[in-house]
């Protein structure tokens, strides 16, 4: 069936899949957000144990989504993988480091003889939550603000001179760290950070029965929601009003177009509608539990979660569709990556599209499994009866 699809259709299909995975990942980073709230919301050891265990049962889902996102991006748009990871070296490496320390911290935190001590593992969880979210947000922001690199496939044939035979070359010596210093990038980074905390709080009040934690959570929901909304709006409004990286569909020339992302929004009404719906759902998920807690305490995470997925999903479609360069180079506009010039071959995309048919099946068993083991609220009494506790 996929054999009948055109190359551009498959490229778009894969951009949709990669964007959806990224969107799911941003939502699942509520685990990271929660890790930065352990001492804010948990005042006793027991309370922190409840929080850690609640998050600990989900870290793998987030982590696996990140790994799968990486693999899917590699398989479908390898030029992005080589240009961005190999160029923005420090940003990606720091993200990786932040994630490496996470996995073990849950498993080792309260174990006997754990070498680094419980406090260190908790600190590592905090670092993962802080750096992981901010840097991922910053990296995604460069899809709109651009980076400094050049791509020249002819470099592969360079055998002499002072240049190595390397196709993608990053400019400057900060290797991506410069992106974290850009105010606009950083505002998306901080928006993601505060969003992850908001989502974590909503998740906690959905799943925890401890009234003290709930009380504190309600307070901190507001404290985190405000900076999230501010940073998010700063970013979205700025990119809507700024020039964007447009591609001429006839000669593939990349040029700066004023209000490009706003134009994209208007040119793709469905994307625009879903984007607005997503933002409204996130806001609703935050505001409803704030004003009518008893009625909406369980629905907040659902609304805000679905809203987050929709919003990020649509933002990434804005970056890649409608003749737009999704990974633009400010240094050399013509080196900018588009979904056409950076994708895998027709054959590989076709093969991978068949593999993608497994995704609904995977989602179904994840849903079924978690429904069977996560069916009631969690408290310290339940944890004490468990044989596997973080």
């Amino acid at each position, binding site marked *: 069936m996929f054999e009948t699809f055109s190359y551009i259709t498959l490229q778009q299909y894969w951009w949709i899949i990669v964007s959806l995975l990224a969107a799911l990942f941003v939502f699942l980073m509520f685990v990271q957000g929660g890790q930065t709230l352990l001492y804010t919301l948990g005042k006793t050891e027991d309370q922190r144990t409840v929080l850690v265990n609640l998050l600990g049962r989900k870290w793998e889902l987030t982590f696996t989504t990140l790994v799968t996102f990486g693999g899917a991006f590699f398989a479908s748009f*390898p030029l992005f993988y080589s240009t961005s990871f190999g160029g923005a*070296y420090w940003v990606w490496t720091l993200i990786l480091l932040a994630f490496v320390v996470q996995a073990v911290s849950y498993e080792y935190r309260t174990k006997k003889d754990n070498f680094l001590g419980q406090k260190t593992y908790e600190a590592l969880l905090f670092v993962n939550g802080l750096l992981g979210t901010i840097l991922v947000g910053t990296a995604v922001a460069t899809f709109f603000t651009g980076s400094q690199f050049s791509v020249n496939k002819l470099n592969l044939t360079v055998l002499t001179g002072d240049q*190595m035979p390397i196709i993608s070359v990053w400019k400057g*010596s900060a290797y991506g760290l410069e992106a974290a210093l850009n105010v606009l990038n950083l505002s998306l980074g901080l928006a993601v950070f505060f969003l992850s905390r908001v989502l974590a709080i909503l998740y906690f009040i959905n799943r925890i029965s401890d009234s003290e934690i709930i009380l504190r959570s309600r307070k901190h929901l507001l404290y985190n929601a405000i900076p999230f909304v501010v940073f998010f709006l700063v970013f979205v409004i700025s990119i809507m009003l700024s020039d964007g990286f447009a591609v001429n569909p006839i000669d593939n020339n990349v040029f700066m177009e004023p209000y490009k992302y706003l134009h994209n929004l208007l040119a793709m009404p469905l994307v625009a509608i879903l984007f607005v719906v997503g933002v409204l759902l996130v806001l609703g998920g935050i505001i409803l539990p704030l004003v009518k807690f008893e009625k909406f305490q369980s629905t907040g995470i659902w609304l805000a979660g679905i809203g987050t997925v929709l919003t990020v999903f649509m933002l990434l479609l804005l970056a890649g569709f409608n003749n737009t360069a999704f990974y633009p180079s400010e240094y050399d506009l013509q080196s900018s990556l588009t979904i056409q010039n950076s994708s895998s071959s027709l054959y590989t995309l076709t093969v991978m599209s068949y593999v993608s048919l497994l995704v609904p099946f995977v989602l179904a068993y994840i849903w079924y*499994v978690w429904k069977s083991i996560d069916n009631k609220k969690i408290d310290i009494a339940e944890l004490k009866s468990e044989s596997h506790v973080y």
Partner: protein
Amino acid sequence: MENVDFSLVNWSRAQFALTAMYHYLFVPLTLGLSFIVAFMETLYVRTGNQEWKRITKFWMSLFGINFAIGVATGLILEFEFGTNWSNYSWFVGDIFGAPLAIEGIMAFFMESTFIAVMFFGWNKVSKGFHLTSTWLVAIGSNLSALWILVANAWMQNPVGMEFNPDTARNEMANFWEVLLSDVAINKFLHTVLSAYVLSSVFVIGVSAWFIIKNREYLFAKKSIRVAAVFGLLASFLTVATGDGSARNMAKYQPMKFAAMENLYDGQQNAPLAVIGLLKKNKEELDPRKEDFVFKIEIPNMLSYMAYLDPNAYVPGIHDLVKGNTEHNIISYQERIDKGSVAIKSLADYTNAKKSGNDSLAQVSLTNFKANYAHFGYGYYANRDMNELIPNVPLVFYSFRIMVGLGMHFILLFMVVLYLTRKDKMLSNKVVLYTALWSIPLAYIASELGWVVAEVGRQPWVIQDILPTIAAVSQVNSGSVQLTFWLFFVIFTGLLIAEIKIMTAQIRKGPDELKQTEINHV
């Protein structure tokens, strides 16, 4: 090429090797212990015997400690293809990316979802559901091994692809050829089977410790039985697939094979040096009569191992470098020349196309295609040819130690199986201590297997097509050096923590586990 930043290439290699070797400290136990735990739980469900449940839960707790750190190091490995090997990621990403993505979609989610049931589902789902989940974790983790090993095998023997000069990369032409290549199948089987051997040695060693300490005899005996049967079966199959690996190597990577055997001058009826002490010689390419200080040989064995024919000719390092007309081997110099033509023709083709010169483009393309098989050698024009020879002693010794240890494990499995059947395990202190000290040996054997596979193929990232010097990312070497040390400190810290926690958990023993359960349920 004067322009290669060697310090960058070497630090990038060091970082990748560091990550891979740390990753592989955790992976084999996950691959094998997941099955061992599944066998044990199956025995529990079928017999209803609580003792089997206790055994299952104990080994499962060790599985959990080991699992997280394997996942963490694996993430780094996946992304390092991009961060440190950017040219590689484009040059073969069209083929290499697919198995990584399939691994995520097909295997990782299965593993991570059902592991939750394994650990948190004991009191929440039915026995059958729990057992199925345990099996799915084992299958999931082994499936993930399949896909990453398919990817690795493809680098050793690139098949099912075609170079597209317009995109300057290799593109997949046949997915099934990539998945089902003989190297891929053999590599997968050899790797996972050796992981089962390691896991069995681990279970037996830990159980032996309990017996030494006069604790949990029945528990230990039952665990040893399951592990010894599993380990013995896996060992025989590891030998068989190892044999297949050697033949594949002789066929597709003759230089690796010659290096592994320290064979400088090719010969018919080549003997296999079972044990040998190599001569130190800096001038690798100088002809020498004797490469060994000392060796014990089996006549004709090497020829048989490589080609299933005791009379077969096995080319040596000199033959491969200098060529051998009698055996139709072209010299490296010739390959370098052809590779240079391929690289230049690719440039000519691209430029001719840009300027609209179709006839020149056509000629260049023909030239390119005729010489593409030697593409990677072109990067060695005006370079020292010794760079095309891997580190012979490292590969030679690693291979022998790995095989020797493999034989030791077979013997160990047989002896403990016999002793537990006769119920004589308790009294035999030598066997008990040997079993205990075999645990680190199993890890050494596993790591050395990868040393043979990966050091042996140097300098090729993709055999004959892309060398490390043309695969690397252009970052300054100071950055890579810094991240190397960051990773080193973090991995080492986590490893120490893992070993300490594991040891503490073992000391606690299965009994402790039962007590907490009794207290809380």
